[in-house]
């Protein structure tokens, strides 16, 4: 109980710290508005060109709301691997390990706090922009509850992936290449730019089973078209993903920590 309180306090501190940077929040909002405007122009042209009411089972309005959610998720992602990389390279990790805290849980609490602020701001500003551009879509309380249920697991998966990459700093000169690669895979294969239903038919079953879809496509799809069966299928995949990622992080962290050499002075 005491441990939970400790990590909750870290997350709370991170929330307060993130709220102090209004300039950064404003910059993200502007960027998001710009991206949504481009998407609006792009998908309006696509729907007009195809002469279709629905594409991938979504109307134009739903498509824009879907893209708003995927953007809000991806743009809120803190680059945990950069922090881990720095901790390893500067030797700060040795100091972190002296604290009566789990390094991974400390980072997780901090990241969740930071991400909660960014995601909320992105959703708020994105919703306003999308409302202005295309208007509202039907929403229900149960749909929003499903969305709220699925988002934390998506964030946890993303966090574990970044932590896994960051720990490679023990072996690589720089992990920047790896996180750029990971973030692009999330963007492309996770359905950030278009829903999985729009991808070529042969790719769809593969993409649905990759962890990227559980982080981006799943929550966005649930937001615009809530459905209990979809929710269950995504939640189960997320649980499998969390178990696999946790084991991977645990193993690599144990191997990595054996390489730490601490000298007094």
């Amino acid at each position: 109980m005491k441990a939970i309180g400790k990590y909750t306090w870290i997350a709370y501190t991170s929330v307060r710290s993130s709220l102090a940077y209004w300039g950064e929040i404003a910059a993200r909002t502007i960027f998001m508005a710009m991206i949504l405007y481009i998407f609006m122009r792009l998908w309006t042209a696509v729907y007009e060109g195809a002469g279709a009411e629905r594409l991938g089972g979504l109307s134009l309005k739903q498509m824009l709301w879907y893209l708003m959610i995927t953007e809000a998720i991806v743009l809120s992602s803190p680059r945990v691997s950069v922090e881990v990389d720095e901790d390893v390279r500067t030797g700060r990790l040795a100091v972190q390990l002296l604290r009566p805290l789990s390094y991974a849980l400390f980072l997780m609490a901090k990241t969740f706090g930071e991400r909660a602020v960014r995601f909320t701001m992105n959703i708020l500003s994105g919703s306003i922009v999308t409302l202005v551009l295309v208007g509202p879509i039907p929403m229900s309380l149960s749909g929003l509850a499903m969305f709220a249920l699925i988002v934390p697991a998506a964030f946890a998966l993303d966090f574990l992936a970044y932590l896994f990459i960051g720990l490679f700093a023990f072996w690589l000169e720089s992990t920047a290449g790896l996180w750029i690669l990971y973030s692009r895979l999330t963007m492309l294969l996770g359905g950030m730019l278009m829903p999985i239903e729009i991808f070529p038919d042969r790719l769809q079953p593969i993409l649905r089973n990759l962890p990227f879809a559980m982080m981006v496509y799943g929550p966005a799809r649930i937001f615009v078209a809530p459905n209990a069966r979809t929710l269950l299928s995504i939640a189960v995949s997320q649980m499998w993903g969390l178990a696999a990622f946790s084991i991977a992080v645990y193993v690599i962290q144990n191997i990595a920590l054996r390489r730490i050499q601490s000298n007094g002075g």
Partner: protein
Amino acid sequence: MPESLKNYLGLMAAYVRINLNAQLEYRGAFISEAVAMFVNDGSWVLFWVMFFHRFPALKGWNLQDVMTIWAVAAGSFGIAHALMGNGWHLPTIIVNGQLDLWMLYPRAVLPHLLLGRTMSTAWGDAAFGYAVYIALVRPDLAHFLMFVFLTVSVAALYVGFSVASASLGFFVGNAAALCEQWRFAVITFATYPQSLFSGLAKLALFTIVPAAFVSYIPVEALRMLSIRHVLASVFGAVVMLGIGSAMFYAGLRRYESGNLLSMHG
């Protein structure tokens, strides 16, 4: 004038060699970052391949046009910042008051400062632009020569724009976020078909967010082998360089030293 140009080209060649050697001291990091940027750009191209697989035409633009957009935008951005990487870092240099070092040399401050660093990721961009154009667009000799000329011209425009956006820091205090958004706007709009935009948005793309000069004009030039569009591209580059230089030197008069001990080399 020709003697001075020759002199600065010699300086550029020397700096490219020095900067590259400095980067290659951390060979693993340099290669992984350049490759990651190549993959990053590649993921966008892959998105467009899948997009056009589903929707073969977009307001008169096809896959080959979008490949050309990416080839020009990435290739020219890469050339600009591989040669003059400090252009990208200029906002931090100005805000931190780190210009003193560059003012001590018997060279014009701006070109010398710009040449002082390379960006590892820019090499990946440059390689990507040329690889995509040669492998996917498959040009004949005339198109290829025009492409080379246009990437150099657009690279000059990027340098001018980087300097102009960074110079806001002289006038608006910490303009890092504003500068970043302005730069992202140009890069983002430049990588989408310009036929999507009309009215005020289109006007903005030729003026305040000069993305049309990065993609629309060069693509039209290559589509029609049009000298008129090549001249328009050169005109855009010259104007942007002029605006960048004017803003930088006007701002330099307001510059206050950060009293920092800096080293270069």
